């Protein structure tokens, strides 16, 4: 029960006006009696008049004594325990930060008992989100899986869960790593900005932070920053700079590697200098194929490191092709070379490097100075610089002796690593003029003819697409059959002994060919080889299609498709999938955007996680998504944990299977696991600004915590007892007025 004076029926304004009028009347009275009376008499009269005025005021305002029922109860103190990935870092005595926090709940249970006696305590775990948790669950270390930490967001979230007046303060158990807004409240010098101070002071209670005890001595090597993977061009050397932060390690070396799918792309050893905490490692590598990649930068762990989470970083990167760089080597000037060259030069996205043999090596009468012939840099283009090309195109060209085998091996290696190779036939290659090119056998998707050296087969060869060719993404066009029917017949073919088992014949001579009984001769054959693709065009008269105004579009269609397919250009695929975001936080969903060619109605999509050895785990459950009229489809997918993931979309078109994939990474924000030493400065300043403080694992006494101890709640009014209508009040006023009259008479004042 609580008692308060209550003035009903009056607003503060009316009370103020009446009070001012009463004071004015008193002052007027004082002014009137000044100088006419002795000081003692004057004081007595003013006191009497003051008492009378108070009595009149009481009569006018009619105050009452209010009896209220109130409840005093314990304030609410939320306890927020950090469960972000950074809590996995090792600290004092080899325990992780999460383990240190859990030990507080087991070893210092009395402290929390005392806290619960004094306050209404609720327990929460927080990282990216906040979740309520039992105290008993906190006696075991929380699984530090949250990829981000938002301390301020957690405080606000918890504040909304209780009436503002009920909160007595916040107890935050965290290492201070915040990847959300806390750092934004500080200037670069680490001082709390006015806006940050306002936020801290505006919290419904002070923040007391309990920090883990850091290990001593600290010993850790961490990846603090990776630069150079933001923008990558295919077949352009990329330099990746890895900044390492070293604590507690003097001397020695660390090994830094860049890998993809378990395959090491670059490795370097960097020396750790004494008295230096930052090391820069440079890794050079050649991105070979366009599209999304997930690269992994790793620092080899040193013995006794506090954290291994900050030794590895998975970084998604987009590799784009700036231009399609084609090496075009022709054995001699010809119409086939000329029209192919003109086609390539007219493509704005092609950067063409041409080498044509203009004259054989026979001695001539004229001097070399008369001509513009230049030496052919075979070593440079076939070995040194071959990786710089997206496609190596040999046209009726035989690799020269004496380095033929070595150059062919270089080309082989280039294709197996993701390059593209196309051999255009003619009178000098594929056994037409000499023996079968055995040195190119591994690159060619065709088998040697039974008889070599008999030239090309001449005649009239109309061309048609094979069933595989009609379904192939490089040629898929409903009008293809009609387009091919309108092309002039080829007049010469390189005859081969068939195709390799892995090859795919896309174009062949039509049944009109007299030799059809021996099978329809292949014209365009492709195959995959390692990571790359190869193709062979078994004619040197395709130029007739380009020279013919009606067949020219078909020529371009075939060449466009062939180049796109060989170089793995997305435009050469009938199915594409893209995942956003390419770097997802654990627990978050990702969105798959699918682009499908006309005729595809549904697509199956599934996720696969990459194992450390580069292989993929078996796919999870697949989902079927419908493709809309524009050829687009979307699906939301849930990766089940951190790691490198692959989204695989599959469907079929004209009964041919189509598969597309995209890579993405799931993991915490880099800052979450970046450093071994807890960055407590921000949290400490913020807590202080909220009238709280930062404390260590030696918990301060509960009574010393700056939390508001109790909440006073009024639950109702039991009675209002008027004060003004008491008889004693009337008698006092009457007595005062009578006394004033008597005194005035006595001193002679009228």
């Amino acid at each position, binding site marked *: 029960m609580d008692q308060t004076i209550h003035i009903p029926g009056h607003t503060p304004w009316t009370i103020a006006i009446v009070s001012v009028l009463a004071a004015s009347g008193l002052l007027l009275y004082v002014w009137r009696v000044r100088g006419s009376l002795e000081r003692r008499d004057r004081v007595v009269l003013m006191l009497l008049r003051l008492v009378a005025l108070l009595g009149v005021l009481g009569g006018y305002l009619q105050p009452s004594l209010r009896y209220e029922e109130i409840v005093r109860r314990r304030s609410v103190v939320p306890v927020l325990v950090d469960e972000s990935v950074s809590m996995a870092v090792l600290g004092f005595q080899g325990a992780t930060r999460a383990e240190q926090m859990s030990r507080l709940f087991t070893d210092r249970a009395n402290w929390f008992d005392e806290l619960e006696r004094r306050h209404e305590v609720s327990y929460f775990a927080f990282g990216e989100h906040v979740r309520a948790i039992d105290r008993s669950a906190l006696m075991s270390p929380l699984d530090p899986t949250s990829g981000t930490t938002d301390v301020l967001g957690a405080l606000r979230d918890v504040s909304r869960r209780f009436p503002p007046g009920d909160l007595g303060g916040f107890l935050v158990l965290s290492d201070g790593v915040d990847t959300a807004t806390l750092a934004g409240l500080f200037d670069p010098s680490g001082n709390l900005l006015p806006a940050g101070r306002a936020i801290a002071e505006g919290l419904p209670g002070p923040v007391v932070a309990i920090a883990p005890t850091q290990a001593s001595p600290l010993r850790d090597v961490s990846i603090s920053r990776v630069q150079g993977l933001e923008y990558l061009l295919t077949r352009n050397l990329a330099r990746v700079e890895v900044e390492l932060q070293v604590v507690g390690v003097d001397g020695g070396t660390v090994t830094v590697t860049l890998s993809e799918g378990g395959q090491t792309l670059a490795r370097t050893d960097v020396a750790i200098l004494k008295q230096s905490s930052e090391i820069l490692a440079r890794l050079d590598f050649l991105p070979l194929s366009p599209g999304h990649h997930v690269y992994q930068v790793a620092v080899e762990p040193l013995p006794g490191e506090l954290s291994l989470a900050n030794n590895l970083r998975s970084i998604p990167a987009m590799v784009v092709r700036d231009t399609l760089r084609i090496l075009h080597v022709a054995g001699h000037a010809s119409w086939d070379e000329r029209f192919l060259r003109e086609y390539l030069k007219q493509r704005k996205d092609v950067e063409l490097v041409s080498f044509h043999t203009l004259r054989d090596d026979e001695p001539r009468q004229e001097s070399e*100075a008369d001509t513009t012939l230049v030496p052919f840099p075979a070593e440079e283009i076939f070995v040194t*610089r071959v990786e710089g090309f997206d496609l190596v195109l040999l046209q009726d060209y035989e690799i020269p002796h004496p380095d033929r085998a070595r150059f062919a091996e270089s080309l082989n290696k280039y294709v197996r690593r993701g390059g593209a190779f196309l051999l255009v036939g003619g009178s000098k290659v594929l056994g037409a003029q000499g023996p079968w090119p055995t040195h190119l056998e591994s690159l060619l998707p065709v088998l040697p003819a039974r008889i070599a050296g008999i030239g090309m087969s001449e005649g009239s060869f109309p061309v048609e697409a094979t069933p595989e060719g009609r379904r192939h993404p490089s040629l898929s066009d409903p009008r293809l059959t009609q387009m091919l029917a309108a092309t002039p017949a080829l007049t010469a073919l390189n005859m081969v002994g068939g195709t390799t088992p892995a090859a795919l014949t896309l174009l062949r001579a039509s049944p009109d060919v007299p030799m059809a009984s021996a099978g329809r001769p292949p014209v365009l054959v492709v195959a995959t080889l390692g990571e790359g693709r190869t193709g062979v065009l078994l004619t040197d008269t395709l130029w007739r299609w380009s020279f013919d105004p009606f067949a020219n579009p078909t020529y371009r269609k075939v060449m466009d498709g062939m180049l796109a397919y060989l170089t793995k250009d997305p435009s050469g695929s009938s199915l594409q999938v893209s995942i956003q975001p390419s770097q997802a936080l654990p627990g978050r969903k990702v969105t798959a955007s699918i682009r499908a060619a006309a005729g595809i109605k549904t697509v199956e999509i599934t996720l696969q996680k990459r194992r450390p050895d580069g292989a993929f785990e078996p796919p999870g459950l697949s989902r079927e998504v419908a493709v809309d009229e524009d050829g687009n489809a979307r699906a939301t997918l849930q990766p089940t944990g951190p790691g490198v993931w692959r989204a695989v979309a599959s469907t079929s078109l004209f009964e041919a299977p189509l598969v597309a994939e995209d890579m993405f990474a799931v993991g915490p924000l880099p800052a979450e696991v970046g450093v071994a030493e807890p960055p407590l400065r921000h949290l400490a300043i913020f807590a202080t600004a909220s009238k709280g403080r930062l404390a260590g694992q030696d918990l301060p006494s509960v009574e010393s915590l700056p939390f508001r101890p109790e909440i006073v709640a009024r639950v109702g009014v039991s009675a209002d007892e008027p004060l003004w209508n008491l008889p004693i009040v009337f008698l006092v006023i009457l007595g005062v007025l009578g006394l004033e009259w008597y005194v005035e008479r006595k001193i002679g004042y009228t």
Partner: protein
Amino acid sequence: MNRFRVAQVTVGDQPPCRPNASFVLGQEVRFRTAVDVKLDRIVVALGSRDVFDQPFLLWVGNGAFPALTDIERNHLRTFLGSGGFLLVDNAGEGSDYSAFDRRFRAELRRALPGADMRAIQSRHVLFRSFYRLTSAWGRKAVCPYLEGVELDGRLALVYSQNDLAGAWSRDGYGVWEFEAVPGGPAQREEAIRLGVNLVMYALLLDYKDEQAHVQYLMQRRRLRPEDLQER
């Protein structure tokens, strides 16, 4: 097979002028370069569809010729627009020279209304496509330059007024049919070299211009750590 041939083209019912020239040009190209040449004497009428089998045509004129029919004009336009190369050579003397020149220019304007025939500068890649050349003389030395029509950035038609075909003409016994004046054998050799360059240009276009940029193009992509340091 994909062999290069020099086909001589005729208009109307006119017989081919300098009929041995195309064969000799083919011989010289085969002898001097790596081009796989089919040696034959082939004559095609401009009004025939056969012109679309031969991307390199030689038209040797001497005097006035009948006005081109619509078909011939259409073929000429299509041939040049599709990537064909036409070498026009004025072999006439005196009034015949002028008559062919006038009629050819008039017909060209009608066949290719928007085309602009201009003198080919001596720095053009045509003069470097195989040999380094400084003159454009043929059997005679009437005009010091060649003229040409560019379509889609390439020379589609080249016009010589110096009787190039006359300088190339050789009979079955290997005897030159016409004397090159005033320069004699040296002038003839220059004319043959010009013929070789014309063929090489038709087959290679601006390949020789590109060679100047090859090293730059080769190194544009950085493949080795030292490539990064060079920049």
